[in-house]
């Protein structure tokens, strides 16, 4: 086996640790409100696309709501374009949409107001969720829209067993209104993905 110099000289990373129960809600931008469509309030400009609301909750192994979780959402704009350091001056960027929001849920429920994500890089529309909670290190997953035909070709969905895919589906419950349950452990556990090894 051969190693490059880079590998030999790597520093030991600081371990992740649990966020604990007392992350200060006041540290979240926009006063902890979970609305990606309003990055600059009080102006006439709005992001392009279909404004939707996703009501969700996070539950534990006993089906109890998981209080105190810190949730971070990330997604492309309605054109399927991600706002990132290497794309920020691109014409496809929607200047009124960054695709990032975070929120500390007090009781385990959340309500995300956003724009329905477009199709990006051969992927079905999805929203990346990072979940920090007491008792665990960071968890990551992606949520999809149950009524999207492109789900059948999505490389992430295809990489997990068929019976698990529906656990990542956001279901439509009314016009522009969706619902999702994230189950951290046990029966119907949400599939989570490894952020470190790839």
């Amino acid at each position: 086996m051969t190693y490059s110099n880079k590998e030999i000289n790597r520093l030991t990373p600081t371990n992740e640790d649990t966020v604990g129960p007392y992350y200060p809600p006041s540290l979240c931008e926009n006063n902890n409100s979970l609305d990606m469509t309003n990055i600059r309030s009080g102006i006439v400009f709005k992001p392009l696309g279909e404004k939707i609301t996703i009501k969700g909750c996070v539950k534990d192994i006993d089906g109890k709501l998981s209080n105190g979780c810190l949730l971070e959402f990330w997604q492309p704009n309605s054109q399927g374009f991600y706002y990132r350091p290497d794309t920020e001056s691109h014409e496809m960027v929607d200047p009124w949409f960054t695709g990032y929001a975070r929120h500390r849920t007090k009781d385990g429920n959340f309500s995300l107001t956003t724009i329905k994500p477009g199709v990006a890089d051969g992927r079905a529309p999805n929203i990346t969720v990072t979940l920090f909670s007491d008792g665990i290190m960071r968890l990551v997953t992606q949520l999809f829209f149950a009524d999207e035909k492109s789900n059948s070709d999505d490389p992430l969905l295809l990489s997990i067993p068929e019976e698990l895919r529906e656990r990542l589906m956001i279901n439509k419950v009314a016009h522009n209104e969706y619902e999702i349950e994230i189950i951290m452990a046990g029966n119907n556990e949400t599939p989570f993905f490894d952020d470190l090894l790839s």
Partner: protein
Amino acid sequence: MTKYGRQLGIGPTDNTSNERTPRNKLNLIPEAARTSFVPYAPRAHSINLAEADMTRIAPGRPRASGEAIKVSGKLMDEYGRPIRNALIEIWNANQHGGYTHDEDHSGLPIDQNFLGIGRTLSSSDGNYEFWTIKPGAYLARPDIGRWRPPHIHVSIIGGSSRLISQMYFPNDPHNAKDPMRILMGDSFEANIGKKYIVTDGDFDCGYNFDIIIGGKNPTFFENNIT
């Protein structure tokens, strides 16, 4: 075919960890979905310099009680390259182990002069420093006498860098039984601040805590590593 990543461990004697740790192995992210798993938090941080001084509620207010300490270090990726202008959020208990969070129902004393919440930015060299009060230990499981050792929570957001961790203190007797410390094993060493003498200002001492953010994420878009 599914490729699996880590099986996460449950923190011993930690009830919340037992309730919330996924029982299934993590699924490995396929290469085609890789970039979509590196959230980028836009830099819209406006920080008041005084937020790095947690020893007072605000400039000119009385000093909080307990040992005033400096915590400083360098924020880097695994290759030693600085992570610049990153948002560092800090929160810790007061000298009695109590938090000002309105969900802390421990009944531990609150210090009217200690908020326990601060923020700072890493410099263009990746360096950071904040001042706080050394937190006390608190009894996390009264039924079995298990304490949480003194610790300072840190959250780092720097572009696509993301880490939530805790700094522990050297030689604390409660370190050994901490559930997350047990999961970390020998690598716990990386999460202990190294004590140093402070000669300027009114501080008991300082702790050096270099924060190394591992994996590709810290520099995924900013500085591609192959």
